[in-house]
């Protein structure tokens, strides 16, 4: 038997850094519980860990230029992974900043909160790097398990507990479906690595086609749950509404980004031979996701629920880009442009969605944070700055020019047109029009003349303000100068091929 050599673990340094700061945050929370100043330590540790991971991603030799596959291909830190991990770090930073004031207002112990948040980010990063279905599964599970606990973090709040149980049960079921799909893939290919699956997919015989179809259906269910694709979206409005506000902001973005990152890598590196199964299925799912998300959002009066349905609809738009990229017969150029559009959409979506959820945490009419349209009525007069920021996020969610939302939609729709998916492009544009109506309902409420209930006093501290201002600036910058980010996205996507 040959001597065992340990694999080179250097590429895991960013993940290890964040995991270690998670452990420190948990320890700080446990040891320094009785000192009020300690409340500031855990979020500071979280921020330091997330920011320190960024230069470490680039410090690994060649990680950004030459794709390197270590651990016999289990884990890879190519440009695509690094690009997504940068975004995930930003998600973690915004989620941390948004949470500080909320946890203080709710008088919650916070060490474990930031620890679990960081571990959720680590899970997201692992799925972005996974080149083996075992690691993909474990990464998604680390993410899911952390978010179950975060959703139920307010133990005295029955809504929080209810949505945690709902999320846990449904998500476990989705995980089981994902595992079944992965086991069928293993049956087809005899291996768990993406390379083995790709090799098996290159020459599928007639009998195996049906198995491949089944596994694609199960994978769509499992990954689609995390990405809130219809018909696996039912949980999202309930869970986002019941979850603590800052967790809802993370939940609407984190799992979705991880799911789309994993889906892109899976489709490009493992399942190009399965495209004829994926494309028709995802086309239907995409149209359903956009349409149902937007139509149901029209009738919502709770802003958290409305934003949840809008996040479902946005998942449908993102899926357009993926379908366009894998439509049979597209050139390599169109394919990378479509995938780059999806990556760009993920970036834009992160800032506008976290910003919109974050604004709700800065407004507190009465004894709880703003949730309904009535809570926001007349905000433009009393809190002009908060109203203006929310307006920026709403304009971006609608897709008004000069905001990130517009450029993102533009790139995705135009990639669909150049790939020849006209149905999807038309469905997307029609949906964008429908969506504008309910976002404008919020905007109208903001600047309504008649005063709403209660006095919406400011609930945010400096960290929340920083997070919201940074998100709004990012949206405007992305909208006005989209070139640089799109170019980075394009390069990162090319590293996959």
């Amino acid at each position, binding site marked *: *038997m040959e001597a*065992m050599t*340990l*694999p080179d*673990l250097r590429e*895991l340094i960013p993940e290890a850094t964040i*995991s270690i700061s998670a452990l420190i945050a*948990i320890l700080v929370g446990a040891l320094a*519980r009785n000192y*009020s100043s300690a*409340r500031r330590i855990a979020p500071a540790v979280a921020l330091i860990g997330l920011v320190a991971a960024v230069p470490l991603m680039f410090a690994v030799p060649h990680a950004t230029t030459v794709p390197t596959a270590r*651990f*016999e291909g*289990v*884990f890879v830190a190519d440009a695509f992974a690094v690009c997504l991990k940068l975004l995930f770090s930003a998600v973690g930073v915004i989620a941390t900043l948004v949470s500080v004031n909320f*946890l*203080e207002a709710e*008088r*919650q*112990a*916070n060490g*474990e909160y930031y*620890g*679990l948040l960081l*571990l959720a980010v*680590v899970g997201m990063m*692992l799925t972005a790097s996974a080149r*083996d279905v*075992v*690691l993909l599964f*474990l*990464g998604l*599970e*680390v993410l899911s*398990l*952390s978010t*179950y*606990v975060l959703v*139920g*973090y307010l*133990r005295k709040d029955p809504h929080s507990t209810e949505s*945690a149980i709902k999320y846990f049960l449904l998500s476990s079921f989705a995980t089981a479906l994902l595992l079944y799909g992965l086991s069928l893939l293993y*049956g*087809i*290919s*005899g*291996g768990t690595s993406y390379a*083995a699956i790709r090799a098996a997919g290159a020459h599928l015989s007639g*009998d*195996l086609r*049906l*198995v491949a*179809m*089944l596994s694609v259906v199960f994978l769509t269910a499992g990954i689609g749950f995390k990405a809130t694709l219809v018909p696996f979206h039912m949980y999202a409005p309930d869970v986002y509404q019941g979850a603590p506000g800052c967790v809802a902001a993370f939940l609407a973005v984190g799992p979705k980004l991880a799911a789309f990152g994993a889906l892109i890598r899976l489709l490009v590196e493992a399942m190009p031979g399965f495209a004829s199964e994926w494309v028709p299925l995802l086309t239907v799912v995409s149209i359903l996701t956009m349409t149902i998300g937007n139509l149901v959002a029209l009738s919502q009066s709770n802003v958290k629920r409305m934003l949840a349905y809008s996040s479902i609809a946005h998942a449908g738009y993102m899926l357009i880009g993926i379908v366009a990229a894998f439509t049979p017969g597209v050139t390599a150029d169109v394919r990378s442009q479509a995938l780059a559009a999806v990556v760009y959409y993920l970036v834009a979506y992160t800032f506008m969605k976290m910003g919109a959820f974050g604004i709700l945490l800065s407004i507190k009419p009465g004894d709880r944070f703003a949730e309904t349209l009535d809570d926001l009525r007349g905000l433009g007069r009393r809190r002009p700055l908060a109203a203006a920021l929310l307006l920026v996020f709403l304009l971006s969610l609608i897709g008004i020019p000069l905001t990130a939302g517009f450029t993102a939609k533009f790139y995705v729709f135009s990639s669909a047109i150049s790939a020849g998916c006209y149905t999807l492009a038309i469905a997307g544009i029609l949906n964008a029009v429908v969506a504008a109506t309910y976002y404008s309902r919020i905007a109208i409420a903001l600047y309504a003349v008649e005063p709403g209930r209660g006095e919406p006093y400011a609930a945010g501290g400096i960290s929340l303000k920083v997070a919201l201002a940074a998100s709004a600036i990012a949206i405007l910058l992305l909208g006005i100068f989209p070139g640089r980010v799109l170019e980075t996205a394009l390069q990162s996507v090319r590293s996959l091929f």
Partner: protein
Amino acid sequence: MTSVWPLLLYYLLPLVGLWTYRRGGRTGTLAAGISWFLAAVALGVVIGDARSFAVISFYLLSLVAVMTAFLVVTGTNPVYGALSLIGTFTGIAGVFVVLQCEFFGIVQVILYAGAILVLYLFVVMMVDLPKENAQKRGGVRGIAAIATGLGLLALVVKALAPLGMRLQPAAGASAEPYSVRAVGTALFGPYLVPFEVASLLLLVALVGAIVLSGRERES
């Protein structure tokens, strides 16, 4: 034939009225057992060569697993249910051994029959669950559930049945892939990262359990 089982199982669950739960559960278990045994004997006669011993033991062990699984689902006493589940896990462990996956057989016994079942019993006895009440059954929802289950089952069977024994391990797979040594080498070689991530997963579960169930903590 296979698709009859879910239907049968559904109607053997504790039911108000005609059948008491006991009769239902025992009849179902007996029916499953007899038909499974006949299938085993028939197969043994048909094959009749050296492989038949393995085939017959497979059928006998799966007979244990299926019968006890019936008892788990149809019973109303949670302690009996947990005890029957031990039988199911032991049967499955035996199947693993027949398939020459000794390691998984051992793991199955130690982890599932040992650790997890003891945990189940602890919980069941500590929270003092009441006896499960018999439920009314039927309606659109039940029929829709059966139809969906049967449809999925039919699809899976249709997809997997023609493959039969043609699925082969990938080229380069170890000669005895499920021996303890092979599992260890794989865990600390190519699967080192997933192995470490699994420990991260356990950490998350541990911290999460403490956060959700520990002493009330406020800052």
